[in-house]
């Protein structure tokens, strides 16, 4: 029933990236606090972030814009933003608009590891 919730997981020993879970809707309303929280995280010189989208039920252009902005900022800092397991509905929006080639989208944490720490 919750419309929006965000969890920024604590940094784990030896983990090469920070993990964030976003659930509910990412629209013009909820994106305001989403962006505040994520840019707050990046200000702590975090430059590898994985956002779990497996419980994101809706995304609008405002949410896509926020993800694009984060991707841009992290890439400039030689980091990366990885999106984990978007729901079918959100994936379809990425696909119809042409974002599946732009965002790094993965199906598992292992795959994300491979992007953050290429061997």
């Amino acid at each position, binding site marked *: 029933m919750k419309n929006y919730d965000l969890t920024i997981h604590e940094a784990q020993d030896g983990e090469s990236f920070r993990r964030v879970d976003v659930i509910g809707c990412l629209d013009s*309303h909820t994106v305001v606090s989403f962006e505040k929280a994520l840019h707050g995280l990046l200000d702590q010189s975090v430059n590898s972030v994985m956002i779990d989208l497996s419980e994101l039920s809706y995304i*609008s*252009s405002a949410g896509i814009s*926020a993800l*694009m902005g984060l991707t841009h900022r992290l890439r400039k800092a030689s980091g990366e933003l990885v999106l984990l397991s978007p729901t079918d509905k959100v994936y*379809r*929006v990425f696909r*119809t*608009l042409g974002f599946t080639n*732009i965002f790094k989208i993965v199906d598992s944490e292992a795959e994300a590891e491979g992007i953050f720490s290429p061997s």
Partner: protein
Amino acid sequence: MSGTDRPAPCGEVIDLEIRCLPDTRMLAPVRAMATAIAAQQGFSPDQIDQIEMAVDEACANVVRHAYRHLGISPDLSDEERAAIHAAVSEGTAGDCTIRLRVSLAEDRLVFQVIDNGIGIDKTPPGVARVEEFVERGGGGGLGMLIIRNYMDEVTYDQPEGQGTILTMTKYLGNPEPTA
């Protein structure tokens, strides 16, 4: 009769109209209503998602842009929001609303999003292609593109000094959009 009380598009019956404050908290309820209507009219799950998003983008644009001269934007603090609510309800901020009209027909749904705000430039606003948006690293401009991609017919009207009327039509059984 105020300017926005103009008649429905020719031949359509306005079945439902929502009027609400330009507050982003209204977007989720408005989306819920739009998707329920679309489901009931027999649109496919994909089409329902597209209608949801187009209606959301159109209403979000009213909050984001139409009333910026009054200080209205999505990222207000609760206090700022309350002050604007008060000004609107006392009438000192004018008739500053989002108005969504829905017309049901056998073969289509028509949504009109109407505001009394600053209006839209004649040149089609927003980005023309997603690449443009990607190159500048986000920063908006995608909403109109989504509306144009996801709805079958989209027109803007600017009745003299009265904000914007965005009319979006979705036909039942139309093929999927391609971006």
